[in-house]
């Protein structure tokens, strides 16, 4: 999947790809100890489009949100259904518009379009439902995960997206060396990350965003490495080591 991170304070947008393995579960937001929220995403694979030399594609097939406060709840979103598991279980189809509100937690589905999960009024996530009528072999029904509101998440929040919520980044330039032109770098948490300018489509391709792209699976941009973000199961709430 491709990731986009907006740094409003720095007025910068950064993007990167994570080429995971099908079946892997990635920790996207991890704030279990503080706000009690964890978001994991499971990857599904599809072959690369014909003619391209790219590796296989990966998409999010399931997104799970674990909420600890005020009551423990598990929300599992797939392109077909949403399972809301709290004190009791509710299975909602994604093809019709449904809203379930229990005060602190609400789940709202706009049929065949998106699922919004709101926690405590100051955290919200939007999951876009990408469903294909006639999918090509390299296409799979999948999900897109967007952070709507993150005020309720703590400064200790981590995960592939969560770790950037309260960060500031700076853009600098590596001076020209020999024939090489000066190249842009991002300054993140004291690390220098080489980036290039790119454009990414978001919100189901309806909008395009210019971003600074960090190569190599976001090496140096993210804390640690890919394996550090792998969860053992969909409802794993393990914290950043």
């Amino acid at each position, binding site marked *: *999947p*491709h*990731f*986009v*991170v*907006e740094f409003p304070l720095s007025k910068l*947008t950064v993007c990167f*790809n*994570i080429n995971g393995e099908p079946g892997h579960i*990635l920790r*996207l937001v991890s704030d279990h100890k503080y706000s009690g929220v964890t978001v994991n*995403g499971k990857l599904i694979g*599809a072959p690369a489009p014909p003619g391209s030399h790219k590796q296989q*594609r*990966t*998409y*999010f097939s399931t997104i799970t949100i674990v909420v600890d406060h005020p009551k423990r709840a598990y929300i599992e979103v797939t392109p077909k259904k949403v399972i809301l598991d709290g*004190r*009791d*279980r*509710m*299975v*909602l*189809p994604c*093809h*019709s*518009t*449904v*809203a*379930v*509100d*229990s*005060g602190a937690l609400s789940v709202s589905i706009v*049929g065949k379009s*998106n699922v*919004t999960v709101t926690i405590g009024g100051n955290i919200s996530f*939007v999951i*876009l439902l*990408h469903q294909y009528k006639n999918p090509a072999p390299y296409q799979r029904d*999948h999900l*897109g*995960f*967007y*952070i*709507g509101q*993150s005020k309720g998440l703590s400064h200790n929040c981590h995960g*592939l*997206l969560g770790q*950037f*919520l309260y960060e500031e980044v700076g853009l600098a330039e590596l001076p020209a060396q020999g024939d090489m032109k000066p190249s842009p770098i991002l300054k993140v948490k004291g690390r220098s990350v080489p980036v290039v300018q790119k454009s990414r489509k*978001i*919100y189901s391709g309806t909008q395009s*965003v210019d971003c600074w792209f960090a190569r190599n699976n976001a090496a140096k941009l993210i804390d640690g490495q890919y394996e550090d973000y792998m969860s053992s199961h969909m409802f794993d709430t393990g914290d950043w080591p």
Partner: protein
Amino acid sequence: RVPRQVKTILSKETKPHIQELSIKTTIISRYAFTAVYCAMLNRHSAATEGVFQFQVPANAYVSNFTMIIGGRVYQSEVRPKEKRVKQENGKPKNKESGDASPEPEVEVFRMAANIPGRNRAVFLLTYEELLQRRLGRYEHVTSLRPLQLVSRLTLDVTIVDHSPITDLQVLPLRNGRSSSASSSETGPKTPAKPEPPVTTVIKNEKNVCKITFSPNIVQQAKITTNGLLGDFVIRYDVQRDMGIGDIQVLNGHFVHYFAPKDLPVVPKNVVFVIDTSASMLGTKIRQTKDALFTILRDLRPGDRFNFISFSNKIKVWQPNRLVPVTPLNVRDAKKFIYTLATTGGTNIDDAMQTGSSLLRDYLSGPDASPNSVSLIIFLTDGRPTVGEIQSTVILGNTRSAVQEKFCIFTIGIGNDVDYRLLERMALENCGMMRRIHEEADASAMLKGFYDEIGTPLLSDIRINYTEDSVQYVTQHLFTNYFNGSEIVIAGKLTNQSAEILHVQVTASNSDKSIILETDVPLRHRQIETEKHVKAATAAMAGGARTPGSGSMQGLGVALGSIAEDFVERVWGFLSVKDGLRSRLRSQTSKEREDHIQQATNLSLAYHFLTPLTNLVVEKPEVLADGSMAPAPTITPAAGSTASELPGDTEEGEPQKPNGKPGGQTSSVRNTIGKAARRPAKKSITISKTSADGD
């Protein structure tokens, strides 16, 4: 080869012989049309009275009756009933003595006509019914009781549904008093005796299912020689998901079936109010206790409960509270039930007051969960004999005590119950009434009734459709939705060229509020509905025969044309039912008259024989020599009053409306779109921070 014994029975038969009895039912999306064709032969040279008798399910409305005698057609006509005049014995005038069975919920359609000597008579009857979903399935019952051995007996049932048919069951023939044609009964029933092998042919394709039962005369004789074969029962369900439900559109009308699944159970607060008067002694109290022991096991951890027993005295198991379901409380409750002893009279009023105040106090207390469902299950076998005995006063007191805070479900056992009182008590307080026959297995039936209402899934359900796109929507506010049941709403489309119909369902479920919304593409649905009507019509046309020459083709055609308008007829059917219920809840006599007028007009428009209409048939006059007289006489068909709701003959005090969501109806008034507006669609503001497709 017809055995000698059967031949002897046939030769001894003095009444006209039924040569053919064909019953053809088509169920399109739970709406069942049944056509009965009965050909009778008078072998004697003198005119003889032939009696056509058929049990019609209590929930059904007869929609046509025609006789063909001596080559002449006598068509029935539905007319509004005259204003009732109270009879000395309290029975309406036009009720024939032999027409109704002892069970008032069973309608027996009966028509006697003189058949000229050596001549044939053909009786054609049609009735319609919306099958109710109970305990997760629909049940269709056909009474096979021709009262004699029939040369050609066939029963064809075709089920066509928009959704795939699941769990189809054809039960062994049910017989006995407890197995009347009433669709309002619950609990398992046992076949009268082991049946000889009579082939029931079942053809089941995904959305179409055909069941044929045609025992020949020998097979009938092996079951019984008196012609009381029993009830032919079919049960099935259809596939569904947790969506907005199934909406079908046809010729400017729509019908919406809503029965979501996969919903968590809403906890309930339940008070059992049990009659322990002297008449309950013996089997009744034993079976009641058995059922209560089973029910105790089925209570869920989140539920709260209490028991009240009443006779002359009122005993409360746990005074002033409702207790949670814990092993200790269940054990104590068992002890209480075990020690229930029968004595004294029946103080219904005080029992209801005590039960209501228990629930009311609990609901106003700090422990009450705001979204739990509260109900009283009231069981009695008798009329009020102690304390307040006036029905109208008891009903008024109950309404005041309930304060629209909970629902009352009533169960009557046996013949000595004031069912009118129980029905009104339930109807006015968003509940239901059930009847258990004297000889029936009360334990199973009480448990069955509890099972129906023991698992509430949603409360305060409101179903709205696009503002200004619909009118005359039937009841669309419901107090509760129980697991295994189904909510059905129908209405007229004001704008038939509209592309979509927006449907919104709002409801509460334990600690959550739920909103389901969808846009229904009307044109697409119309095409879909037309497609399965065609399938139904094709199924009906298969194997049809012609009246007059011993065939049912005419009926098949008639049913086909009805099927083509089935959505409108569902609307008519539900609107009449709504009107009859609203009549009982009317606050003023003007309101009551209005509801009566509306329901009568609808009954006439759809040719339904309802408690507000009579079916009038011309009857042939047969002269002494066996020939036909020139001018026929007009007779109201018997059985036309058998299904009257309580209150039909009682011009009591005007009643206050229930006011509860489930208690309100909108039979023929446009209330849609005004009460609840569609919420404005929120635009989603989301950051770019995301993880999306590759």
